[in-house]
C-alpha cells in the first residue's frame, strides 16, 4: 500500500505538468512517466484490494477507518483499487513526504524524480527476489519503467548542473531543498520491517548505501554538491503524518468521486 501511494501521488504531481511542460517533447515525456507511475499504482492497489477482501471482517476495520470504505465493508461489499485511491482519507495514505512535495519549478521537479527514481530502481530490483509471486511480477514490470525514469531524471540533473550558471544554481537549489525528504525512503515502517523479515519486502536500510553512491556519481558529474549525509530528515509519511500538500492533492484528485460516488465517464 505504501508503494502504491508513492506511485500514485508522484504520478499525480507529474501529471500536473501536463500541458505546462517547458516544451512539447518534455511535456509528453513527463506525462508518459506519470502514466507509468499510475500503472504501477494500479497494479499494487489491485493486489492490495485482493488481499484486503480476503481478510476477516474485524481485521478489515482495524486496517481502514475512512467512513466511505468502512460503510462498504459493513455491507459486505468487496473494495476495489479505486476505493483505495479515491475514498481513503489523508491520514491513511502511507506515501513518503518526498513525493507529495510541490512541483515548484522544473529543477525541483527533476530533483524529486531523481531521488525517487534511483530509490525505485533499487527497490524493484530487490523485490524481484521477493517470495511473493504477484509482487515479484509487478516489480519485474515496474523495473523496466523505473530504469528509464532514472536515466531520464539523471540526465536532466547533469544537463542542468553542467549547463549555464543559472541552471546550475537552480538545480543545486532543487537538490538542497528536496534533500531532507530523502532519508524517509530508507526508514522502515512497521510494515516495511515485517515484510522484509518475511522475505516478501525489501530491507530498505540495505539499499541506502547503493543509493548514496549512485546519486553521488551523477551529482558530481553534474558539477553539483551532494548535501551532507547527516542532515536532519523529515519523516512521518509512512505513518500517515503528512505535509499540508497532500490534502490539496487529495482534494483535487478525489473531489469527483466524493461528490458523485460511483460516477464514471
Amino acid at each position, binding site marked *: 500500500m505504501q508503494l502504491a501511494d508513492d506511485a500514485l501521488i508522484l504520478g499525480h504531481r507529474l501529471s500536473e505538468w501536463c500541458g505546462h511542460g517547458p516544451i*512539447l*517533447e518534455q511535456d*509528453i*515525456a513527463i506525462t508518459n512517466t506519470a502514466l507509468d507511475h499510475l500503472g504501477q499504482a494500479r497494479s499494487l492497489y489491485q493486489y492490495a484490494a485482493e488481499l484486503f477482501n480476503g481478510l476477516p471482517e474485524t481485521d478489515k476495520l482495524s486496517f481502514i477507518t475512512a467512513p466511505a470504505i468502512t460503510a462498504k465493508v459493513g455491507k459486505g461489499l468487496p473494495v476495489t483499487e479505486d476505493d483505495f485511491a479515491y475514498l481513503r482519507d489523508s491520514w491513511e495514505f502511507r506515501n513518503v513526504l518526498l513525493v507529495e512535495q510541490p512541483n515548484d519549478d522544473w529543477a525541483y521537479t527533476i530533483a524529486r524524480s531523481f531521488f525517487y527514481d534511483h530509490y525505485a530502481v533499487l527497490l524493484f530490483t530487490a523485490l524481484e527476489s521477493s517470495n511473493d509471486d504477484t509482487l515479484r511480477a509487478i516489480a519485474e514490470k515496474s523495473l523496466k519503467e523505473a530504469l528509464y525514469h532514472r536515466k531520464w531524471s539523471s*540526465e536532466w540533473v547533469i*544537463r542542468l548542473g553542467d549547463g549555464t550558471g543559472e541552471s546550475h544554481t537552480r538545480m543545486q537549489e532543487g537538490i538542497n531543498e528536496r534533500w531532507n525528504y530523502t532519508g524517509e525512503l530508507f526508514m522502515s515502517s512497521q510494515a516495511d520491517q515485517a515484510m522484509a523479515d518475511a522475505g516478501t519486502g525489501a530491507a530498505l536500510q540495505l539499499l541506502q548505501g547503493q543509493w548514496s553512491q549512485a546519486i553521488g556519481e551523477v551529482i558530481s558529474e553534474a558539477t553539483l554538491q551532494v548535501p551532507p549525509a547527516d542532515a536532519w530528515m523529515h519523516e512521518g509519511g509512512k505513518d500517515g503524518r503528512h505535509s499540508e500538500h497532500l490534502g490539496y492533492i487529495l482534494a483535487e484528485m478525489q473531489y469527483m468521486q466524493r461528490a458523485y460516488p460511483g460516477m464514471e465517464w
Partner: protein
Amino acid sequence: MSKEWPLWEVFIRSKTGLDHKHVGSLHAADAQMAIENARDVYTRRMEGVSIWVVESKYIHASNPDDAAILYDPANDKVYRHPTFYDLPDELKHM
C-alpha cells in the same frame, strides 16, 4: 544564441530487418535527449524497435527546381531496368 532547441529528424525502424523510415521531427537540446524525446513522441504505441536521430541542419536536399535535369534524362533508358530476365516462379519480392 537562439532560444529554441535545435530541430532533429527522427527515423524509426518498425521491425527487425526493415529499414528506418522518416517519421517526423522534434526539438531537443542534445542527441541523447532527441532519442528519448523520439521514444516518447513516436514509439508510444509500440511503433518501433530502433531509433535514429539526426540534426535537421545536417540534412542536405536536392533542389526541386532541378528535377528536370536530374531525373528526366533517365526516362528513355529502359535498358537500366532488369526487366529482360526470365525469373523463376519461386523467386519472390523482386
